[in-house]
């Protein structure tokens, strides 16, 4: 079994997006448990990929391919899982704030969170405060992740936090922020719960915030 797990993990780390489905199927055929494939191989691989990205060994192109590879592998296993909802580590809403169309960082975080076992609702880009609050009320996520790449759109993050307070929702959701112009000092200043300098840190925050 260890050989199959290693092969899947190595395929994700190596971005073998074309081979992963066959490798996962081979593992299933050999009797490897679906849970082990997800947790010990796919999620474990994305943790390593995230660390490599955070330390500058790989960059966005490799991250994207690893995420695609992981997703391809997950597609083989998912139909075999029962009660998928109960398996989720938590629910995260991800969005780029109003006035901002940049989404690579957010998309990477979304992929990594899904790989890590979170249920992620990606609302896309240019989300108004009103729409975000509506979705928070509707979905009741554990974590709200906000992304901004522009200094002109950073202030939107503060507005979201303020409106969560105004509507009595602040204590029910953790807010994490990220994006090139944003930093820890800004996160503290606006009352966010955390700042992720990269996708790997964002996943760590989500894990910490979702511990029940």
């Amino acid at each position, binding site marked *: 079994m260890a050989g199959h797990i290693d092969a899947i993990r190595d395929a994700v780390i190596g971005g073998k997006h074309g081979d992963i489905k066959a490798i996962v199927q081979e593992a299933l055929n050999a009797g490897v448990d679906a849970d082990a494939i997800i947790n010990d191989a796919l999620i474990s691989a994305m943790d390593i990929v995230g660390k490599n990205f955070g330390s*500058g060994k790989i960059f966005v*192109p490799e991250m*994207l391919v690893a995420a695609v590879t992981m997703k391809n592998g997950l597609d083989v296993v998912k139909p075999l899982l029962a009660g998928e909802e109960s398996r989720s580590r938590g629910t995260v809403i991800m969005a780029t704030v109003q006035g901002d*169309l940049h989404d690579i960082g957010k998309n990477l975080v979304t992929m990594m969170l899904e790989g890590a076992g979170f249920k992620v609702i990606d609302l896309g880009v240019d989300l108004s405060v009103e729409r975000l609050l509506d979705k928070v009320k509707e979905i009741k996520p554990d974590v709200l992740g906000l992304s901004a790449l522009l200094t*002109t759109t*950073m202030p939107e993050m503060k507005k979201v936090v303020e409106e969560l307070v105004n509507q009595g929702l602040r204590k029910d959701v953790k807010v994490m922020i990220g994006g090139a*112009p*944003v930093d820890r*000092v800004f996160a503290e200043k606006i009352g966010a719960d955390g700042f992720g300098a990269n996708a790997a840190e964002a996943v760590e925050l989500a894990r910490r915030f979702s511990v029940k």
Partner: protein
Amino acid sequence: MKINSYNLVMSAMFGGRRGLRPPVGNPTSIACHGLMDRSGVSFPEAHLHSQAMAELAIAGHEILGFDTVMPEYSVVQEAAALGAQVDWGGRDKMPDVKGFPNGDFSDISVPADFLEKPSCRVVLDAISTIRRHVGGRAAIIGKVMGPWTMSYHMAGTQNFLLAVGMGEKEKVGRMLRQLVPVTIAFINAQFSAGADIVVLADHATRNLVGPYHYEEYLLPIHQEITAQAGGPLILHVCGNCSDRLELFAQSGVDCYHFEWQVDSKEAVRRVGDRISLVGNINNPQALLQGTPEDVYKQARYAIEAGVNIIGPECAIPLSTPVENLRAIVEAAEEGYPVSKEGTVQP
């Protein structure tokens, strides 16, 4: 050397003779609400009408005291001319590409009249207007996107980078090669229109790609572009590019525009003998949220490190206080550091 803005900048571009103070320059936009209010010109008109574009740019020199005039505020002029759908934004929002015409990596059709498309023509006419106004007295800087940045705009950034990650070299290389002539043509047109320097902005930034990506895909292209450029170039690549400074120094450009995350002293030590450096005042923390004193300290650090031209690290946030931009100029007006013996330090 006669001391005027033009001479200070041009000499600094080639690591030449210095005046009493370092030049202050902006390879990227210093348009902000304060400058818009003082000049009477705002966005989006400054992206779309040459006179407005020129007036806002000249305000950076005449009102703030920068030694350069750079009229191209957005990064989407070329993409618009190539058929991308562009939202030209407004007073609070820079333009952005909304649709990616070559998301399927289909061949990019470069129109024969590319330079006459409105988004290119406006820049060329603005440069000519600026030339008539300040030519020879302030350094006029044009700006052109390189093939990597244009690929982001034509194929979509994530889509393009996924192709890079998947090792689809033929597909990626073909798109880049189709865009090289666009960059070269626009650079030379801007020199012909009256630019003294042109910025080659190509966002192979550390936030997105590695030095090995730059070396494999883009360095040969930049060497080709610089060989065919009709004047001096500044390379602008955002992010903490400490890991690729030596590669930039091989590209053939005369100057590199760098960010605060790259230590000035380190940059000067490593490549200062081969290319000039312009930068690197921090945008979000210092220029936008900081005080004039914060900006002054960063400017003096860069001056004392030996950075050739002092300026913001990238296009500034639109709500940057004007007094923070003035603080860069005031820091430069103090001149070069003086040693204990009273001599100006090299």
